[in-house]
């Protein structure tokens, strides 16, 4: 079990966003999290990646509790994420954005940058760049490497974000609504990309509203509503689950 | 003796509240912290001073005039330094208002000199006796005016169409616009009201301290921002209460601490640091827009 979440409660100034949510993510699976808007899915991601602190509960990564770790330490452990609204670093170009992913795996600090003591720094920079290019080719936009990130069309920006996450060399990837704003063709390409990533041995946690995509590729689906988990299981089970249907469509009158 | 200080503290606090309300209104409606608001107060103080000395008009005419003039200044600042800004650079309003601050403060030093200027006694000082305590007419006036202004503001926000527009815009800029609220107009009016309040505060500070200088802008800017922090950004009621709290705290600190240490200004400063580090949402919670 790569990620274990136990009894998570999260309050925001009196408003309860997550109530007693638990999650077990098995390694190498493609695990989807679905639920109506406001269910708490992104909040959950923010708790896992460390952007928020839990009000109560434990999060463990590879059996190691990570509640006290800052986000950058979690990245070093192997957790990477993309955001609901793409958060690239606007004025840098695509390649530089992706090279930032390697930050947690490289070591050149300020002094070595200045004083170039050995060739190691140059070598590391070269490796970082090659690594970044490789991931850009993997997601299919290597030809845009030199463009300013914020000038790319939305779907391509999303791909850059994914490449950036991949260059962290993570074991667990959190994708927050990656298909949002994509047209059908782009969505299909994204689908195969995510599957490819999962097949490389990476665990994928996916928040998505696109039900076709979710049902097609997930191994496990967890359903959240109003801050609580209401169902969990294989796609076929979830499709039949009355609680899930009610959550999305309302109760049958 | 303590009672006297409490009254002074409330009086001081009332002026802080007026400044802070202005900040909070602008923050609520525009999402920016108007760095030059303190200079607007300073300008209002000087305008009041000159209106009184040149025209000899009584206070109850001079004050509204000063408020009007300051309100116009605020509107000008909005039109010239805020509205034309591009929306994509999030630091632009801050930097622009820093620019306005520099202009106003240096102009003031050129016009009025770098030292304090005496503020005329626009009202005779009489002391009223309440039980075994004395309240001066200055205290009464300032507290009275501040209170009326705050009540008036509450009335505007809660009961008028303009107030409704202000509330709508501070909830959600874009949606308010889509629903037909003229956002630019509302922002303009908000600037006018906020600046007028600051002008009133400036005049009353002149009355209370008998002197003003071009540098009070920054001091009150700091105090106003601290009060906003205390009360929560965007929270008008919080600004009112927070101002009174700060005024009381400052005055009482002078009373309670040894006189060599002039901690007044560093006091508010220290409070700001403590709040920012430990409770950035303020004592009464934030009410900023999402997004």
């Amino acid at each position: 079990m790569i990620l274990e979440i136990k009894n998570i409660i999260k309050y925001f100034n009196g408003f309860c966003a997550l109530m007693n949510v638990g999650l077990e993510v098995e390694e190498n699976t493609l695990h989807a999290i679905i639920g109506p808007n406001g269910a708490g899915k992104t909040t959950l991601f923010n708790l896992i990646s460390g952007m928020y602190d839990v009000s109560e509960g434990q999060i463990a990564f590879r059996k190691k509790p990570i509640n006290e770790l800052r986000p950058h330490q979690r990245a070093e452990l192997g957790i990477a994420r993309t955001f609901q609204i793409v958060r690239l670093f606007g004025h840098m170009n695509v390649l530089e954005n992706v090279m930032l992913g390697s930050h947690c795996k490289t070591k050149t600090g300020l002094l070595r940058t200045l004083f170039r003591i050995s060739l190691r720094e140059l070598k590391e920079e070269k490796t970082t760049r090659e690594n970044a290019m490789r991931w850009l080719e993997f997601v299919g936009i290597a030809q845009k490497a030199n463009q300013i990130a914020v000038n790319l069309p939305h779907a391509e920006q999303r791909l850059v974000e994914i490449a950036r996450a991949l260059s962290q060399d993570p074991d667990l990837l959190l994708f927050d609504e990656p298909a949002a704003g994509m047209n059908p063709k782009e969505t299909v390409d994204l689908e195969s990309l995510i599957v490819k990533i999962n097949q490389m041995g990476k665990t994928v946690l996916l928040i998505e509203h696109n039900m076709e995509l979710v049902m097609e590729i997930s191994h496990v689906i967890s359903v959240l509503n109003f801050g609580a988990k209401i169902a969990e299981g294989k796609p076929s089970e979830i499709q039949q689950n009355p609680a899930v249907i009610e959550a999305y469509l309302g109760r049958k009158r | 003796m303590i009672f006297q200080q409490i009254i002074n503290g409330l009086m001081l606090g009332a002026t802080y509240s007026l400044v802070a309300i202005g900040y909070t209104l602008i923050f609520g409606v525009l999402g920016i912290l108007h760095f030059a608001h303190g200079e607007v107060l300073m300008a209002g103080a000087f305008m009041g001073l000159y209106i009184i000395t040149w025209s000899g008009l009584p206070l109850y005419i001079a004050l509204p005039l000063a408020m009007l003039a300051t309100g116009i200044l605020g509107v000008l600042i909005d039109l010239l330094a805020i509205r034309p800004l591009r929306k994509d650079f999030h630091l632009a309003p801050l930097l622009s208002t820093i620019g306005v601050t520099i202009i106003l403060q240096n102009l003031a030093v050129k016009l009025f000199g770098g030292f304090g200027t005496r503020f005329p006694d626009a009202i005779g000082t009489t002391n009223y006796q309440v039980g075994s305590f004395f309240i001066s007419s200055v205290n009464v006036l300032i507290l009275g005016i501040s209170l009326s202004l705050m009540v008036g503001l509450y009335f505007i926000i809660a009961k008028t169409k303009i107030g409704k527009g202000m509330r709508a815009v501070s909830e959600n800029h874009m949606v308010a616009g889509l629903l037909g609220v003229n956002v630019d107009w509302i922002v303009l009016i908000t600037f006018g009201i906020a600046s007028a309040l600051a002008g009133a505060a400036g005049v009353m500070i002149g009355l209370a301290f008998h002197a003003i200088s071009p540098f009070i802008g920054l001091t009150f800017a700091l105090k106003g921002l601290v009060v906003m922090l205390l009360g929560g950004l965007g929270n008008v009621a919080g600004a009112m209460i927070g101002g009174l709290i700060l005024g009381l705290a400052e005055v009482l600190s002078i009373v309670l601490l040894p006189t060599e240490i002039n901690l007044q200004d560093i006091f508010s400063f220290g409070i700001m640091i403590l709040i920012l580090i430990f409770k950035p949402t303020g004592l009464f919670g934030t009410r900023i827009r999402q997004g």
Partner: protein
Amino acid sequence: MDYLTSVVTIAGINIIMALSFYLPFMTGQISLGQAGFMSIGAYASAVCTVKFGIPYVPAVLIGGICSAMVGFVLGLPALRIKGIYLLLLTLGFGEIVRVVFINIDYIGGAAGFPGIPYQEHTLLYAYGMVLILIVFFNRLRKSRMGRACQAVGTDEDAAEVLGVNIIAVKLTAFSTGAFIAGIGGGIFAHYQEYIEPLMFDVMHAVELIVFTIFGGIQIFWGPIFGAFVLTLVPEFLRIIQEWRMELYGALLVLMMIVRPQGIISLDSVWSIEYAVRRLFRIKTTGVLSPSRTEGK
């Protein structure tokens, strides 16, 4: 000729100061305290040369280190504070330093610190430091830490999730900015031969913001350009001198309306870089300057 030398020397010192502002600025920290750090460096180095007979270069370095240490201490609470509140914090810091120095008689108090040994060829030392800083910023721009700084300045939270230790980055940038300001102060002190607390007041700190915003915020050449031009031009137009601060204020507002990225933008630098490279037929060695004709 002498007049020109003196103006250019002051411009050099201003470039150092503008760059001392720019480094924390890159990580999203707008500091009004650089004048305060400059004064710490000025006084510390002056004390070294005058009271302890320490030679120029080590004295100036010590000044820088003192500023850096204070910068570290101030940088800690600054980590949590953003935007206008950081501005106020650093403003307050500058004022506190000024008031403290007014009250220390050992260094002259309000009357100032006279008798600082004049350093021959300060011009060379100033521009030597500028050169070092150019190399520093240039190497930074194309390095791991440089990318990290920019990321922190653009979107702190996203950077942290990516693995950047934003606390370390911001604190280092802030302290190093203080160090650079301290060096500037030391060079300044040994050029003016006399320093007093009033020379390091708020308006001087604000000037640095104007230099950077005017010059350009996207790349370190901006502050260099801004400091140089805005120091030289007022010297040659007396009318401007008298209204200098008001014009700076108006410039800030104008730049925000018309060209928020400043005069020197990334585009300008790339165009120049590209032209130079074409001129000398230098092959691209993997330098990351996106050019419209180079595809991949």
